[in-house]
């Protein structure tokens, strides 16, 4: 794709600004009606999906050039995709999220990059992770585990911990618990340790498509060599990257399962029984990449066609990623199955969830914006009366924990798998 491929989206944008809000039917209060973190920070219309479509058009037509302000408006966005859901409430011919990504690719290609991102990209290219850690420490989280090493052995399932669960000591127990649960369930699973590379999804969001391609190339080749048919990951970002981006950009056919989906399956099949009560009121935060962006990839190579004279359809029909079929219920069902847990919902949930603020390079490039976005979510979470905000993505959890440390609502921040570990009585082991 090229920016020019989104000209029609831009020309057909009506500047309705639905992309600023959650779907209106779901608005329950004045306070939590807003859906777009970007415009809350940037204020001007250019900080919305619709605004970026106009920016793209304006640049393509030579009406304007890339200034610092333009760069700020293009990159200060978490790529959370809320705008995409709201736009598609009424439109079948718009792809605002894809267009915004393409605009980033375009800017990066033309050399309009953010210096703040250079260190993480350098880390990705040399150490194969986004946390600026040495590559050879990547497998340390699993040192004490007895698990197949897929650089030496074969297995049908690879457990991909992802950069943050691998290197973030506060969170890596989730990776260990996950492996333990998979093994208990009798899954033929292995890990790649140091040979596991970053999925590349975050670099893609930052505008560096080529880095995604390098990651995909390495990971897919490594999985193939190890006989892998399924990848299981507890990270929503990796999940989305493998499921949607590897499929779309690299033709991957590997089955992708998020750890909460796997646990949900086990619980529903009666293969996993929670024996310990976890008395706690929690609220669940839908990670953008598992929720509204977690829909299945549908291959499509088609063209626009006109029906009824001028209406737009596609030949063959174009898949519609509207957020309707994201992974929303499995994490909730797992939580509800844990004795003692009371699940309360935030106003903005499922396809309307407010972003944690970590995505799209925002955590790295715009820490203040990222923190403010997390604070907003913590305020909403606290309003439910829950004592913990639970999620299924280490990036969300890290951003929320940092927000709490920085003075946001003093809530516990937990992963669904941590609670599963408690309910199974194995949390301490991890």
């Amino acid at each position, binding site marked *: 794709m090229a920016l020019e491929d989104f000209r029609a989206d831009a020309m057909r944008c009506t500047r309705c600004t639905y992309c600023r809000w959650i779907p209106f039917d779901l608005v329950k209060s*004045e306070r939590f009606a807003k859906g777009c973190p970007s415009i809350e920070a940037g204020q001007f219309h250019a900080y919305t999906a619709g605004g970026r479509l106009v920016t793209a058009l*304006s640049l393509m037509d030579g009406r304007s050039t890339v200034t610092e302000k333009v760069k700020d408006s293009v990159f200060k966005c978490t790529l959370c995709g809320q705008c995409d859901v709201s736009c598609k409430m009424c439109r079948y011919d718009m792809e605002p999220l894809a267009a915004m990504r393409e605009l980033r690719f375009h800017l990066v290609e033309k050399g309009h990059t953010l210096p703040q991102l250079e260190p993480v990209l350098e880390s990705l290219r040399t150490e194969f992770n986004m946390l600026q850690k040495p590559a050879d420490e990547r497998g340390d989280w699993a040192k004490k585990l007895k698990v197949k090493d897929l650089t030496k052995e074969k297995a049908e399932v690879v457990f991909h911990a992802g950069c943050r669960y691998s290197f973030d000591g506060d969170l890596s127990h989730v990776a260990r618990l996950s492996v333990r649960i998979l093994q208990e369930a009798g899954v033929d699973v292995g890990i790649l340790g140091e040979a596991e590379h970053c999925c590349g999804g975050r670099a893609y969001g930052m505008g560096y498509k080529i880095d995604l391609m390098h990651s995909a190339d390495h990971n897919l080749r490594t999985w193939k060599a190890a006989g892998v048919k399924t990848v299981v990951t507890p990270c929503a970002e990796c999940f989305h990257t493998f499921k949607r981006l590897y499929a779309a950009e690299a033709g991957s056919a590997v089955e992708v399962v998020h750890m909460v989906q796997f646990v949900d399956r086990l619980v529903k099949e009666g293969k996993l029984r929670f024996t310990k009560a976890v008395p706690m009121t929690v609220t669940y935060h839908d990670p953008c990449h598992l929720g509204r962006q977690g829909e299945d990839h549908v291959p499509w190579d088609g063209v626009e066609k006109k029906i009824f004279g001028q209406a737009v*359809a596609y030949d*063959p029909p174009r898949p519609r990623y509207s957020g309707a079929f994201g992974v929303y219920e499995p994490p909730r069902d797992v939580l509800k199955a844990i004795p003692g847990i009371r699940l309360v919902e935030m106003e903005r949930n499922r396809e309307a969830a407010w972003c944690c603020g970590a995505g799209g390079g925002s955590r790295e490039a715009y820490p203040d914006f990222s923190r403010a976005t997390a604070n907003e979510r913590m305020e909403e979470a606290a309003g439910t009366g829950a004592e913990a905000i639970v999620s299924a993505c280490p990036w969300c959890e890290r951003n929320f924990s940092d927000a709490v440390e920085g003075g946001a609502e003093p809530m516990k921040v937990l992963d669904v798998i941590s609670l599963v570990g408690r309910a199974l009585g194995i949390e301490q082991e991890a």
Partner: protein
Amino acid sequence: MKEISRDAYRAIEDIVGPEHVTDDPALLDSYAFQWLAELVRPNLSHYMPRPWAVVMPKSTEEVAAVTKVCNKYGVKVKPISTGWYHWAAPLKDDEPTVQFDMRRMNRILEIDEKNMVAVVETGVICAQLQAEVMKRGLNINIIGAGCSTSIVASASAYFGGGPSSYFLGSNSDNLLGQEWVTPAGDVIRTGSLSSGCGWFCGEGPGPSPRAITRGSLGTRGGLGVFTKCAVKLGPWEGPPVLEPKGKPPAYRLPIPESFRVYTVGTPSFEALANIYYEIYDNAIGYIFHRQFNLAGADLAAALWLTYLDPKGTMNDVETRSKDPEVGKISDEARVSFQIILQGRSTADIELQDRILDEIIRRTGCFKVERFCEQDFAEFTNMYLQRMGHKHCNFIWVGGYMGSWMQPGTPDFVKGYVKTAIDGFERDQKSGLLVECGGDAMMGCGSTLGGGGFFALEQFVSYDPNDDDSVRACIKHMEDAIEDCKKNGIPLGKEYLYLQIGWTDERIWNDLAKMPQQFVLNFQRKIKEALDPNGLGDRNYPWIPEGWGKEKPIVTAEAGKPGKSAAAR
């Protein structure tokens, strides 16, 4: 374009802070780019004139201070709230204009439950206020353009009618106190507010310039900036929080026991007028709207049944449109409308239901079965209570232009429907507009509180990404004007839309032919008094003294009131 001193920009920065003003070309373009622009701009451009700067004030004081700077440096002022219309942008290329983006003034200031009044700033949208007032058993009228719109804008500066106007009144009716920064930078408070008595009444004690600030059509930002207003609230017997179910896009709102949601079919527009009168005379109904025909009577059933399916695509609409069973529903729903009854008790709703059944029987109308089934009725309930799907106006291809919509009694409206349908059918034959049938006429059941007065708007869909399609839409607008003239029908919305691209002189030439010239002359005097430097734009209609009585004189000064043609 005349050069504006950088001192003006710096002065504005000093008032609002540098982060709240911009003159970056790309950022300005996101304001210049407007719906309908391509229908009126040279070369079918999607851009209205680029503002000289965009400013985001946080308070009335900031609006007034920036306006004073604009007066000092000769920069026009133009506010937008949610920013959806070509006339929300600057109108002329050669007039440096500061665009006020009002989204930072976004507070609900007060909900006075007892007196059923809410006070809001310009950036508050209908969905937000509705969600809050419903918690108190109250509701607001949401305008036909939907809940993404600013209440202040619809009440102070534009139409203000919507599906619930029938019961709750239109926002122009419901406008109480207002706070207004004139183009001269003066802050005016109207009605009871001006006497320090609060926001409860638009008519004093104190001045009641409601006719000046909004008139029948509103000033559309042409006479300064409205910063706050109060609107009347109405009763709401539904749940305090709307809890829709299902998946997007067609969420479904469960129908409370004390509500009924129907789509009623009629055999003809004559019958539609008759049933309207009967319903109105019997004073039943909470929402009265002709919604789903916006997709065109030929395709409405296929479209909305597809919309109900979260996996549905436009290709499915095409398939469905060929299904004879769907064809039957289309025929049934061809001349239909939606009605929602709200009861205060079981007895009340049952009575309303019986009355409606009797009216339906007497007028030879019927309930459209498929649209009254639970899934569709719940979707209808969601759509019309919240009005959160109005972007569906653009569902076919992103371009829609509403023609016709002349308001009047049902007998008057039924009188122009045939001309509107024939004209649209004729123009669709080009293949350059969406071919959805000649009747794509949508309209709220009332543009006046209590009903009895409504309008139908023809939904003309065109592809903004296809110049030929854009030209076909412009031609349709011109055709509609001619159709009106030929048939002695007042001009409709297409005329208002096209005017945005005209010169002042052309508009004045037309205005000079209209009856009641004294109104336009009176409005000139108002503009002279409130906008001495001509900072507001021509959305506030007026006419130079003597215009049309002698040869129109075209000069650059013509845009300023006080410099009459005669004087020059």
